Structure formats: C-alpha cells, structure tokens
C-alpha cells in the first residue's frame, strides 16, 4: 500500500499557527479528522514555528490529535529540533514516525532516537554533500543514510527515503532528476522511497496540476509514499488511479472502493 502522510497540521500554516496560539483544539481536531477520513494513514505533527515553546506545543497537538482519532491513526513527529523529537516520540501512544533524519552532522541525536524508540524513519537524501542536485547525488546520499542505519542497527525496512523534490521553477531538470533518483534508489539499493511532492511546483501557476501530474510520474517510477494534503481530492484520486493503471491494485479493488466512497459523499 502507498503510504500517505497528511501534511496539514503544520505550524507554518497560518490556520494552524493561530490554533496553536489560541489552544483552539477544535480546529486541530477538524484537520486531523478530515485528513484521516480522506485516507491519510499517518498524520504529520509540526510545531516548529513555536520556537521556544515547540516541545509543549508539540505535546499539546499530539494530545489533541490522539484524543480525536484514537488509536486508528499514527503520527509522524516533524521537527529538526532533537529535544522536541524526543519529547514528541515519548508522547505518542501508537508507534510514531520520525520526520526526519538526514546525513547532516547534526543528525546524530536523531539516529540515537531512532534506535531507542524503534520508530519508522523518514530519511532525507541530503546533507552528506549538501542538497542533492542530480539523481546520482540522491543515490549517494541514500547510500550514506543506509550506512548510517547499518552502523546504528536500524533495519532498512524501517526507513522511507525522501528523494528531495525541488522546484522545476528554479531548475527545469529537477523533476527528471528526482524521478531517476526514485528509480535508481529502488533498483540499486532496494529501499522505500518517499517524497514531499508539492515542492516541485514552487513559484509556478496552477500548482495543483503540476503536483498531481508529478505524483503520477513518481508513483510510476516506484515511489512508496508521500507527504501531501490528503483532502486535495485531485491528489488522492491520482494515487488510486496511478496504482490501478500500473497493476498495483489487485482487481482494481482499492480504486473502486475509493470511487464508491466518493460517490456516496
């Protein structure tokens, strides 16, 4: 199954930032419920914008979302602050996901936290040599991530490697390089691939169109999961339609089920 992480509970979005400031749990509940019902298996939780209050705000968000959704949905803790990551992982009552760990020097504590918690990890294919530009860079960064996991005893099946999508608006080759990256990482390293698809359309008109078209291409290339807005029906339809057309949906059952669901709404 294709992994969908719902990206909407992110403090850099104005609506969420305001809800955090006012401790308006209803708005957060609505976002959590909406994403889960739309098909997100994991709900991303980001309180990075809270700065010095990140730990307490992150815990508050986790509490609200877990109270709303119970144990049906898992959470991914989205922070580059190791203290917040540690607190977030501990606060989760279901198996959390670490979002994210890179090859940057500062990732040492994230590796330790991954080992201690046994959590699944989103690994970023960047940091050993800066931001990846080519498919080759992405393969090399992934290789470095896998070596890091091997040394720490983190098994590869706990890892989703983020292929680092960048805007075609500032480099027209970025789409093909990420696609080739997915193909090569799958083939040469056999690890699961992941993407934050919407970066690809930054600075361009009609981002929805680019995002869902690129998502279809990434899925064809072998992408295993994405962080996205699951309430964007264009994106969700694309996930189901692509998997069906690529023969990854037995008897087309998931597609049919999803379309019947939509019709009922």
């Amino acid at each position, binding site marked *: 199954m294709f992994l969908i992480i719902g990206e909407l509970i992110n403090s850099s979005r104005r609506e969420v930032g305001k809800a955090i400031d006012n401790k308006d749990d209803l708005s957060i509940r609505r976002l959590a419920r909406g994403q889960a019902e739309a098909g997100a298996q994991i709900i991303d939780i980001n309180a990075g914008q809270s700065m010095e209050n990140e730990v307490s705000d992150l815990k508050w968000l986790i509490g609200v979302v877990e109270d709303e959704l119970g144990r049906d949905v898992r959470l991914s803790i989205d922070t*580059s602050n190791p203290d917040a990551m540690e607190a977030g992982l501990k606060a989760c009552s279901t198996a959390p996901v670490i979002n994210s760990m890179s090859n*940057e020097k500062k990732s040492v504590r994230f590796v330790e936290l991954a080992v201690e918690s046994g959590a699944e990890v989103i690994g970023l294919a960047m940091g050993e040599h800066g931001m990846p530009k080519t498919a080759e860079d992405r393969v090399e960064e992934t290789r470095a991530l896998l070596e890091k996991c091997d040394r720490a005893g983190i098994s590869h099946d706990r890892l989703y490697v983020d292929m680092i999508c960048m805007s075609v*608006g500032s480099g027209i080759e970025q789409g093909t390089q990420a696609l080739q990256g997915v193909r090569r990482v799958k083939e040469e390293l056999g690890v699961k691939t992941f993407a934050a698809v919407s970066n690809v359309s930054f*600075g*361009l008109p009609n981002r929805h169109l680019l995002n869902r078209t690129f998502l279809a291409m990434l899925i064809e290339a072998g992408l295993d999961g994405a962080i996205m807005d699951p309430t964007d029906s264009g994106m969700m339809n694309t996930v189901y339609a692509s998997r069906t057309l690529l023969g990854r949906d037995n008897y087309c059952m998931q597609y049919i089920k999803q379309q019947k669901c939509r019709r009922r709404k």
Partner: protein
Amino acid sequence: MLDKIKQAVLAGEMEGIAELTNQALAKGIEAREILDQALTPAMDIVGKEYEDGERYVPEMLISAATMKGAVTLLKPLLVEAGVEARGKFVIGTVEGDLHDIGKDLVAMMIEGAGFEVINLGAEITAEEFVKAVKEHKPNIVGMSALLTTTMIRMPEVIDALKQASLRDQVKVIIGGAPVTQGYADKIGADGYAPDAASATKLAKSLT
C-alpha cells in the same frame, strides 16, 4: 535602443541580449547609461510584477539571466570608467541550513539593482560572515534561513559582528520562510524582507 534592451530583459530574451548590448555600445551609448536606464529599470519592473503575483519564479530567473548577459559585457567597461556599484552586498544561508534557492533569487535581484553581490553560499558560519565583512567591506549583509532551528544562528552572526567591532559598519537584513519582521526587531537586524523583490527595495533604502 535602451528601450529595446529593457524590453529584452523583461521578455527574458537571453539569446539576443549580447548583440543588443554591443549594438548600443557601438552607437556610443555609455555602459553606465545602459545599466541605469535599461537594466536596472527593467529589473525594478520584474520585481514589482513578482510582488504583485503577475510574474512567476522562472520568469524572474530568465530576466535575471538576460540582465546578467548584458552586465558581463558592461562590467569591464564600468570598471575602466571608474563607475562604482550602488553598494556592496554580502549574502549567505546560515550555518546548518542547506537551502539556497530563495537566497540565490535575492542575490540575483539585488545584483540587478546595481549592487556588487558576493554570494557566500549555504551553511555559512558566523566566523565566515565576519571574515567576508572584513574582506569585502559590504554596505549590507543578508542572511537567509529556512528552518526554525537554523534561524537562531542569525542573532549569533549579529553578535559575532558586534564582537569584531563591525556591526556599526554594516546593515544586516534577514529573510526566509520562518523569519518575520518581529524576529528581525527582536534580534536587532536592520530589516526583514519576505521575498526577493522586497529585499531589493530594502537594500536600496539602506544605501
């Protein structure tokens, strides 16, 4: 002729710009005039259109690249004529932060406004910022950060400039997704800009 150059920059006609520039020079138009009356006004419009949402990132990039095509030809002539840049601008993304797209956009736009730009790259430590300020003596230092965890490097750079007794010789401006005007005020920066066009305006207002 100047208008033709201006239109070429606006339209992003990279292929024709060298020929147009050479034609203008052959007609006796001075490098300075081409810069001040064609290139800079064109980039002003580009910036404004971007701010108003009428222009997209690639349209800005292609105009900047076209402008650069002309500037490359003009630069030696400007140096020869003793024409000074509008100011010097040093820019970098702070330590621990690899993001450079927004920072590069700012660098390009500010160069288009007639500044000499020294782009240090990404993951620049406080010491490296201090060293660059000592070496290049810029009017303005720009810092970029895309993460809340790296944004905290900005006040450290300001402190390092203070300790090196350089803070009063240079204006500091900041930007990046998590950065706000409030944060700029809090850490004692001289300005904040939400995008490349505003950064250009800000840089002009500070020199």
